[in-house]
Each structure stands twice: as structure tokens, then as C-alpha cells.
């Protein structure tokens, strides 16, 4: 079952779709950010999965030449990406707080109706 053998990629795809759907379909600004986070997380998992090698061990230099290491580079990259993701979420949430102060709501449709009545 080669298809199931790649189960972590299936997880990536499912998470990606869940996140993307949430971003598009939800009116609540906080839920949208949650969706964005899930979406980004799925990409992190994609990177980490691709660095993994069957039977590979953590990339810490060991004695001997027949040791198989996992590829550390994607992991490092994803450390950066996680930082970026956290920063994005932080900026997004602070915007939501300011929006809540200004409009008294975090629901997109209510914000729209307030702006249109201006």
C-alpha cells in the first residue's frame, strides 16, 4: 500500500485544505487566523516529512561511515518558518484586538455593515 505509506503527506493535504477552507469560509477574524495557522502548519509538516529518510537517525555526527542521517536542512528552514508563522499570527491577533476596539466586533459581516453605514 504505497498510498497509505505516504500517510504523512495525506495529513499535510488534509490540514492544508482544512486551514484554507477556514480562511475562506469563516467570518470570525480570529477563526480566520486559526485557519491561517493550520494552513501554515501543514506546510511545516510537508518540509519535515521530506527531510526524513527511512532508517535515518538524527543528524548528529557519529563514529562510522554507514550511518544514515535525516536531512537537517528542511528542519532548520522550518524553524525559521515557524518563527515567521508565530510573528504573522501575533501581528494578526494584535490587529484583531485593534479592530475589536474600533468596531466592537470581530465578525466580518458586522464590520462591513458598520463601514457601509458610514
Amino acid at each position, binding site marked *: 500500500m504505497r498510498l497509505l505509506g505516504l500517510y504523512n503527506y495525506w495529513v499535510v493535504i488534509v490540514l492544508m485544505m482544512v486551514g484554507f477552507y477556514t480562511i475562506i469560509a469563516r467570518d470570525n477574524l480570529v477563526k480566520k487566523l486559526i485557519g491561517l495557522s493550520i494552513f501554515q502548519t501543514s506546510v511545516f509538516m510537508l518540509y519535515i516529512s521530506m527531510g526524513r529518510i527511512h532508517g535515518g537517525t538524527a543528524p548528529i555526527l557519529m563514529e562510522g561511515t554507514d550511518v544514515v542521517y535525516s536531512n537537517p536542512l528542511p528542519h532548520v*528552514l522550518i524553524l525559521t*518558518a515557524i518563527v515567521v508563522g508565530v510573528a504573522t499570527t501575533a501581528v494578526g491577533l494584535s490587529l*484583531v484586538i485593534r479592530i475589536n476596539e474600533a468596531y466592537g466586533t470581530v465578525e466580518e459581516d458586522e464590520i462591513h455593515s458598520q463601514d457601509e453605514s458610514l
Partner: protein
Amino acid sequence: MSAHLPVLLIVVPLLAAPLAALVRHPRGSWVVALGASWWALGVSIALLMRVLADGTISYEIGGWAAPWGIEYRIDVANAFVLLIVSGIGAVVTPYARVSVEREVEAARIPLFHTAFILCLTGLLGIAVTGDVFNVFVFLEISSLSAYALIALGQDRRALTSAYQYLVMGSVGATFIVIGIGLLYVMTGTLNMADLAVRLPEVAATRTIPVAFAFLTVGICLKLALFPLHLWLPNAYTFAPSSVTAFIASTATKVAVYMLLRFFFTVFGAAFSFDVMQLDMVLMPLALVAIVSMSLVAIYQQNAKRLLAYSSLAQIGYMILGISLASVTGVTAGILHLFNHALMKGALFMTLGCVMYRVGSVRVEAMAGLGKTMPWTMAAFVIGGLSLIGVPLTVGFVSKWYLVLAALEQGLWPLAVVVLLGSLLAVMYVWKVVEVAYFQPPPDGDPPAEAPLSLLVPTWALVVANLYFGIDAKLTAGVAMRAAEALLGVGQ
């Protein structure tokens, strides 16, 4: 020292940013920003001159050799983009001092300048780096600071538009990361030059086209190509004036540069256009953008939003040139990158002057400004003429190359659309001009002319609009060399 210029270009502003935050004094942090932006301009000029004289510069960060380490690789194309970004930054920073004091509350001004420098750093970083993951990191640095800058606008709608931009921008960036990841899976490298070598071996797989598609969508979101443009009009309209002037003339330009870099250098023009037929996607979208966005611009009642829609149409011109995938076409695209930065920078800065004195940039609020703020409106008229593409302005030079590129391939209907687009530009520019010059100013105290600290930077860009329109040998020559480098011909 001069060997380390590529990295100093990034590191100095990157260090200046926290410094500006630590200063905590509005004027003090502005001085830091000014220093950083002028430093960037000086380095960019030095780098461009060196690239023109000696050819491509390759710089290894921390001494790690490419493709393992991160390489900064500067050829004519990105040296030119660096010049655009840092040039606009160096003009907008002096302008920002007074403008920001009026539009942003005092406590936030140091943070404004911090975010401004970070945004500049990020944009410069995208242009300078030769590593695709590094592109993503710098992209997020510039985007996150841009969201914060836009949210500082006076109107509360600035917050929602910043939020909207954040969501769409992050989705775009994530798409780009996915694309980069897939490329890495197939090739095991992140270095652009290395990718270009290794990609052809695996181009026939299914993964590479998927990566290509993710990158296309992600980048087109960032450069706001129709129909992925929805974040842009609000963001430009409600951001503080100096932010709009800066972002409108740099952020989308850098995204266009990313498009060029990925599709010409990394994938190669042959793969992008012959195999993937990118032109079949970009050309129709560009044409629709030119016509529809210009039409929408005509009906806007807010001058900033009007210019925002005009920007979307102008992006269409750049993409149209690029989609022709010929030397002349890509030259036209790159040239318009530069020229449009000059005209939109100047125009948004005049609106900043209006905002400063009148407190509104709605079209009807500009009645009578031709009399009361003659220098500001004269700048607007010249910028507008440049946008229309009147001879002896930069807009004309862009149009000349674009039409020429279309005619070269016998695509004269494209040429007609390009020229019709400038007629639509006449209509939306003249809408503002007529109100300013034909309607009497409202009763009460007439607004005074904008202060010199706003007018001088504005006019600096206006003069640049004329200068590079009369003597375009430098810009056209550099753009053509950049196009040749990207297409890999003539060297």
C-alpha cells in the same frame, strides 16, 4: 569593506531598525531611518556601478560556499531593482517626517520608523539574495512590517484592510513556500543558480509543474495581478500617505522582480513559456487588468483609491511586457517597473501634501487646489501626464518599448490595448485635474501651500519623471541589459 557591500546593504538597516525603536524619540528615530535609507541608496548605487563595470557579484554569507551557504548574487536585474527600492526609500523618508507627525500619534512614531526600515530591509533582501528560501524570509520581513505600517492609518478601515492584506499576503507567501519546498524535494538545493542547473533534469516529473503553479499563484498574489488584487485598493487607500507612497512604488515592484527571477532564472524562459505556457495565463490577465482596472479607477471618488486602481492597471502593463518573453518585452516590463515607481511615488506624495493641508483626499475635497496649492497640483499634473505617457516623461518611454515589443511579434491588437489604456488614464487623471482647477475653492480659510519638507521630496521625484523621460538612455540601457541577462542572450 567594499567587498562586503552586498551584506552591509542588508545588515546596516536591519540593525538600524531596533535602534530606531530604542531611541523612542520621534525626531531621533526619524534620523536613524534617514541614515539607513540613504545608506541603502549609496550602497545600491555603488553596487549597480560595480555590476555594470565588472559583471555579476557573488557574495557568500559567512564565508559558506554556495550552494550550501546562502549566496547573495547581484546581476544587472536586481541591482536595478535595488536602486529603485532604495531610491524611493531615500526620497520618502525625508518626506515621512512631517507627514507622519500629522497622521500618526506621537507615541507610535518611533515604531513607525522601525517598521519602515524593516520593510525597506525586507524588500532589499528579496532583491539581493540568490537563495530561494531566503527570498521567503525577506518577503515575510517586508510583509509583516507593511501590515503594521498600513494599520497605522488614521481611518479605522486601515485596520481591516491591513488584516485583509495580512491574510491574503500570508496565503500568498505560504504558497511560495510550498513551491520552494517542492523544488527542494526534487533537486536538493535552494540556490537559484544551482536550481537552474538541476531543474532541467527533473523537469519532466509531475512535481515541478505543481511547484511552478504554487509559485505562480503565490507571486501573483503578492504583485496583485488581477484577479488576485483584492487586498491592494483598501491597503493603499487607508495607509498613511508616506506608507502608500513607499509601498505603492516598491512592494509590488519587488514582487514583479520575484516573478522575473523565478520564471526566467530559476525555471528558465524556455520551460516557463514553451512548456508551461505561462504567457497564456499572464497575457490575458494583464490585458484584463489594464482595461478593467483603468475603468474602475475612473469611477473612484477617493483620489488615493483612484491611483490604487491605476496601479493595478499599470501592473498589467509590466506583466504584459514580461509575458511577451522577448528582450524588448522584458525590457519594457523592467523599464516600467522603474518608471512606474517614479510616477506613482510622485503622485501619492502629492496626495500626502493634500492630506496634510486639507485633511482629505476625496476628489471633491480637492476643489480649487489649483489656485491654493499651485506647486502641489502642478506636481500632480506632471505626475499624471507621466502616467498617461505624454512624450518627454518616463511614462512615454515605457509605452514606447511596450508598443514596440508588441509590434515586433506582430501583435498589434496588444499595442492598441496599451494605447487605449493611456486614454483611460487621461480620463481618471483629468477627473482630479478638473476638480482642482475648475471648481472654486470652498468658502472659509483656503489651505496654504504644503510645507517645503513635503514639497522638496515630491518635486525630486517629479523632476526624475521628466529627467528619465528626456534622457532614458541610462534606464533603458540598464533595463535592456537586465532583460538580456534574464533571458540569457547577448552575453
